[in-house]
């Protein structure tokens, strides 16, 4: 197990190194740079002034020097300076991280709480009215973009109650009730969509398991439905579900951009889009690397969970 984790972490490091090359290259391939944007806000361009700013920001150096400098910064824990805000990148990025992690975790929690039970019920009551209703419910969730649902929630709140959630981040110690409201609504909007996917995977996986011989044996032994479904069937049907949950969580870290924008939550994804628009290389590079780390770690965690859920899975070493 230990060797497996070390191997995986080594592969993760290589993956991150590859990612860093891709991020760095793609950013430089995008048309325009921060200096163009700065001049754009001023409404003119001066080639000599542009050169001076490029020099000031270190953007006139060869690309490989800039790349190695960035790697050195990562290794030493220095995330560089935001071009846009003219100050260290880390103090800007740090408060964004917990917002996105909390929103993603809450969304996944909702998704699991809704998706798994409805998936089980739908499978157990296959081809009944309840099954059809639950499938329509899940299909609606898949078809409805989270940002659209978010906007509908906002509009409904403002129209019926003349109220919307707070416009800035409210910390849990500052006002827990407001904090909860601020996160519950977007988490519901996002979680509903994810729950639809989890529900469908749970349903199909469970249906498959329910047709296995050992389930038939369990029924034949006269075990109760609850024991057969929850103890024997569901545990074995959960592997693909856990995989989907892991993928969804990883996707949400970077994919919450529109939800964060609609609910005005200061998270990583919303900030990342602004940073891309501003070609704020240090911020973009470090935020994308952060997302990559979360994706890799959540995949690793899912793989670890396989061993817990299925004793047949053994990690070589």
């Amino acid at each position, binding site marked *: 197990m230990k060797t497996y984790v070390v191997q995986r972490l080594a592969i993760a490091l290589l993956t991150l190194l590859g990612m860093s090359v891709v991020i760095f290259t793609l950013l430089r391939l995008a*048309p*325009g*740079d921060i200096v*163009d*944007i*700065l*001049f*754009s*806000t*001023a*409404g*003119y*361009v*001066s080639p000599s*002034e542009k050169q*001076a*700013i490029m020099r*000031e920001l270190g953007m006139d150096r060869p690309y490989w020097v800039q790349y190695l400098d960035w790697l050195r910064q990562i290794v030493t824990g220095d995330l560089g300076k935001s071009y*846009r*805000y*003219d*100050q260290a990148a880390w103090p*800007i990025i740090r*408060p964004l991280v917990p917002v996105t992690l909390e929103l993603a975790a809450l969304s996944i929690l909702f998704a699991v709480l809704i998706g798994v039970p409805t998936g089980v019920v739908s499978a157990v009551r296959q081809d009944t009215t309840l099954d059809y209703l639950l499938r329509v419910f899940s299909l609606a969730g898949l078809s409805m973009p989270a940002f659209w649902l978010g*906007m509908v929630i*906002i*509009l409904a*709140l*403002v*129209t019926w109650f*003349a*109220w*919307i959630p*707070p*416009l*800035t*981040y409210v910390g849990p110690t500052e006002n827990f009730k407001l904090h909860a409201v601020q996160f519950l609504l977007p988490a519901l909007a996002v979680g509903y969509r994810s729950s639809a996917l989890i529900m469908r995977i749970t349903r199909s996986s469970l249906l498959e398991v329910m047709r296995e011989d050992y389930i038939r044996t369990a029924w034949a032994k006269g075990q109760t439905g609850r024991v057969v479904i929850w103890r024997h069937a569901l545990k074995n049907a959960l592997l693909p579900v856990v995989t989907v949950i892991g993928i969804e969580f990883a996707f949400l870290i970077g994919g919450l951009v529109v939800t964060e*924008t*609609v*609910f*005005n939550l*200061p998270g990583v994804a*919303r*900030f990342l889009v*602004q940073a891309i*628009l501003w*070609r704020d290389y240090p911020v973009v590079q470090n935020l994308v690397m952060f997302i990559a780390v979360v994706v890799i770690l959540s995949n690793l965690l899912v793989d670890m969970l396989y061993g817990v859920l299925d004793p047949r899975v053994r990690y070589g070493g």
Partner: protein
Amino acid sequence: MSRVRIVLFATLVLVLVAIALITPATSQTPKSGGVLNVMLREDLSQGFSIHETSTISTVWPAMPCLSNLVLFDPLKKTESVDTIIGELAEKWSWQDNYRNLVFFLRKGVKWHDGQPFTSKDVKFTFDMLREAADAPAKLRINPRKDWYANVEAIEAPDPYTAVFRLKKPQPSLLLMLASGYTPIYAAHVSPANYRTACVGTGPFKVKEWRKGEFVELVKNPDYFVKGRPYLDGLKYFVIVERGTRQAAMQAGKLDVSFPGETTKTAAEQLKKAVPQLVVTPYSQNVTDNIIMNVKKPPFDNPKIRLAVSHAIDRRALIQAVHQSGAVVGASLAPKPWGLWGLAEKDLVGLPGYGAKPADEKALARKLMAEAGSSPEKPLKVEIVTRAIAIYVDMASFVINELKQIGIDASLKQIETAQWHAMATRGDYQLGANLTGIGPDDPDANYYENYACGSPRNYSQYCNEEVMKMIDAQSQELDPKKRLALNYAIQKKLEADAARPILDWKIDYFTVWPHVKNLIPHQSIYNFGRMQEVWSDK
């Protein structure tokens, strides 16, 4: 009681009622206290460094922290030389036939860090802006250097006197100094520092700027105007999503909208949802216009440029693209939205403003035929515009109009990051553009957008005769003569299709009724100081 007495009494009552009805309500006494929540549609682009940017997203939240020498009176909606009040300057005086402008500065003013304000700060700021050879500091981006091209020297003979020595008379310099674009920076602070913090002398101090989230300002207890500001603070919320901004306004989470944000349709929707909201239409001092590269074929041909201008039906564009939330006008804002622009009746006879659009199109087709093109043998061109909805909508309308006169224009959307570089380089044929102007004054507009060699003269139009007229109006001391000269310049620019103006955009500035004394001016850049604003909550 006798009948006469009854009649007299009744008459007296009636007179009193009538007086009560016709007398305007006494203006309310301002109250101190309260915090206003103000809308921001994007984060500050250069922090509080107004001198390094042109965007309202910086000017609007940074203005309350800073002060000018002079400012357009926040309580008057008209911006003119008559509505300028002193800020850091107590008094000022033109001398030597408008060649010297002398400012007598307030004493006892302190910067937010406690340092005293003196004439040294004035000299520092304007030497930096005009890039004097001996300037002690340099801005990394200096978009309004041209405003000070006529300043020969800035002198500070004593700590409370500053003298602007001009190369030639320029009465309008005072209007540029009164713009929100012209705050005084502290000489003891690096200009780069304003990108992250704000050391000003303004009515509010910056308490916190949480990037991408909000900017919070609190009352400056040492503000040099006694009893001001009324408010305890201001909080500017960054809300990127338009629908959320509107919902926040509707829900009362925001008290004040963002200048230039509210279209006519949006204002109507808000009023329908919350009838008590106060909506004030005013000119944004922003135009939709067409830029044609006069240095490149086919628009080096004046006939084709003129044909383009004739072809575009301005009134139809205003209806279709702005749902009537804009007005026609030439290169300066038209009355009553501005002071200098040609009125609609004066536009008749200029390209594109004929009474019958069909006649204008026929004239355009004739010009195109003379240039060798026709609807059967269309001229193929590329029209560039920024990849932003308001630009693309306008460009799409223009493409349809041009198609009717034999110009087959294909749309190319340019990202913001590349737009100004491309336009300044002249790397385009035809463009659909927006231009924002600081103060409503001809100098601020003409030298920037029409002067030979100006980097913002995207069309690269250069006409010596027009330049002489622009210089003449700038030096003209008689307001009536200056106005007449400006009418002539505007007609000439439109007749030359230098940068055909399509419309002047109107903003429907929206506030909640408890917000008092926040009066929009003729330009979005000049009314953000907030020192007179109070809350009747």
